[in-house]
């Protein structure tokens, strides 16, 4: 039992921190521009594909360096030459634009790399067990994923709350005109934040690609969950996104590892249903089966009982 709990916690942390890398960029962009970027997970997918291509020639580490740079540059160009123009037509136009961009990137990925799964692998350097606990191995690569994610969180937190550029970004989020009147180039700040946000998604793609497989549907798989995290954490809150990411990661991990099900609950209540009951499928559901639905269930509960999310500021 302890063994299951420890490994579920570790796996939940890995998933949660990976989700945070995606959610942090998305929430930063939302804070500044007030628009949810539907194409955000597509930049994550591009990160994985760019890294895969670079790794074929130069190895994994070069991919880790170049892919986020490429994705961030692409993100900045998208903001500068497309999103900024669409911005004049309001948030609906922006949403439709990013929605279309997500499809465009998915089609482009299939066009250039094909529809099959890519053999993008973790580096040999990290191909060993970091430690063995209860007879089970925890790979060094997963430890690496945790280190990178925590490192990014700490750097991001420091930059945003302690550095002068972070203070300018915070101020530009709430008072863009005042910041511009003080001589700061707000459009350039917006472009840089969009670039950094998409680059973070790119980093997530680079390190998740070898574990979660690199295929054209990978953006869809994580995309919806990232939106759930941003809403649960509170639109625009980095701290909220961090807590929500870990919550979702751990929740799913515990759910998958448990063998609890509806029959256990019914037995606890002293109820019993025969196997030929028309709702037999419902009564025999197990927690691992409903694990993928849990984030969305949590989303519904948060929207009902705390619509601003855990640390949302926008409604205040």
């Amino acid at each position: 039992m302890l063994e299951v709990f420890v490994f579920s916690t570790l796996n939940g942390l890995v998933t949660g921190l990976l989700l945070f890398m995606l959610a942090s960029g998305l929430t930063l962009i939302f804070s500044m521009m007030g628009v949810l970027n539907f194409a955000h997970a597509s930049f994550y997918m591009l990160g994985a594909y760019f890294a895969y291509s670079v790794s074929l020639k130069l190895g994994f580490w070069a991919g880790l360096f170049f892919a986020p740079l490429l994705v961030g540059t692409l993100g900045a160009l998208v903001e500068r030459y497309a999103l900024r123009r669409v911005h004049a037509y309001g948030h609906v136009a922006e949403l439709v634009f990013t929605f279309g961009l997500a499809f465009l990137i998915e089609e482009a990925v299939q066009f250039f790399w094909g529809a099959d799964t890519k053999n993008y692998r973790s580096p040999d350097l990290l191909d060993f067990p970091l430690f063995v606990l209860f007879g089970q191995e925890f790979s060094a690569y997963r430890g690496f994923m945790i280190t990178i994610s925590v490192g990014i969180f700490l750097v991001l937190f420091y930059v945003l709350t302690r550095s002068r550029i972070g203070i300018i970004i915070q101020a530009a989020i709430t008072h863009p005109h005042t910041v511009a009147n003080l001589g700061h180039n707000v459009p350039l700040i917006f472009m840089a934040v969009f670039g950094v946000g998409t680059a973070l998604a790119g980093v997530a793609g680079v390190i998740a690609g070898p574990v979660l497989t690199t295929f054209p549907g990978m953006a869809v798989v994580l995309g919806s969950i990232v939106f759930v995290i941003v809403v649960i954490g509170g639109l625009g809150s980095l701290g909220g996104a961090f807590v929500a990411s870990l919550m979702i990661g751990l929740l799913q991990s515990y759910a998958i590892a448990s063998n609890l099900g509806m029959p256990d609950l019914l037995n606890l209540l002293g109820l019993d249903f025969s196997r030929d009951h028309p709702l037999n499928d419902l009564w025999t559901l197990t927690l691992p089966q409903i694990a993928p639905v849990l984030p969305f269930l949590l989303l519904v509960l948060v929207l009902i009982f705390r619509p601003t999310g855990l640390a949302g500021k926008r409604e205040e």
Partner: protein
Amino acid sequence: MLEVSELNAYYGKSHILQGVEFNVQEGEIVSLLGRNGVGRSTTVKSIIGEVSPVGSIKFKGEEIAGRPSFEIASRGLGYVPENRDIFPTLTVRQNLMLGMKNGQRNSRWTMSEIFEMFPNLAERAEVAGGVLSGGEQQMLSMCRTLMGDPDMIMIDEPTEGLAPKIVDQVSRLLEEIASRGVAILLVEQKLNVALRISHRLYVMGHGQIVYEGTSASLQLADEIRSEWLEV
């Protein structure tokens, strides 16, 4: 320093500024007076780029009409808005840091000097800007603009809603700013403050300049005061 000619501005179909013309010289304190709604705030917003201007605005000899706000501010024209726009979650020190421009050197104003001039701000350096009193917020807003070392600042209604003692402090700061060679365009409703510290004054009415003179001449111009200024 600042030369405004044939300045027009519109809010939708409303023609707010109708050919405004005035100038501010180096180190001068110039006041823009007038009743509410005559276009004083729109004039400064047009100069800083918050409202689209039609006409000519020259700052230090260069045309700035229609340029982005950040570019105008970078050229040395500071703006203190009427609502002060303090960043409420940032500390006093962080608010002041925001006023500094990238790569700025040899500023006329340093943070330690500002704290020396305003011990209240120094005592509350690590306090969030949102919890300061109205007077302290006004001082912070003006000092934040000074941190960018502007050659001229436009201040919109700095004494609005302040106690008489604080109004005196604001007046003294304005004179101190001017004594360091920084020109000031003051948008003010309190006639006594403007008359006391201004070198020249303009009176606005119906979106136009209707009078130009010195404090002494305006004090003698009873007709102008009763027609355009007194309520």
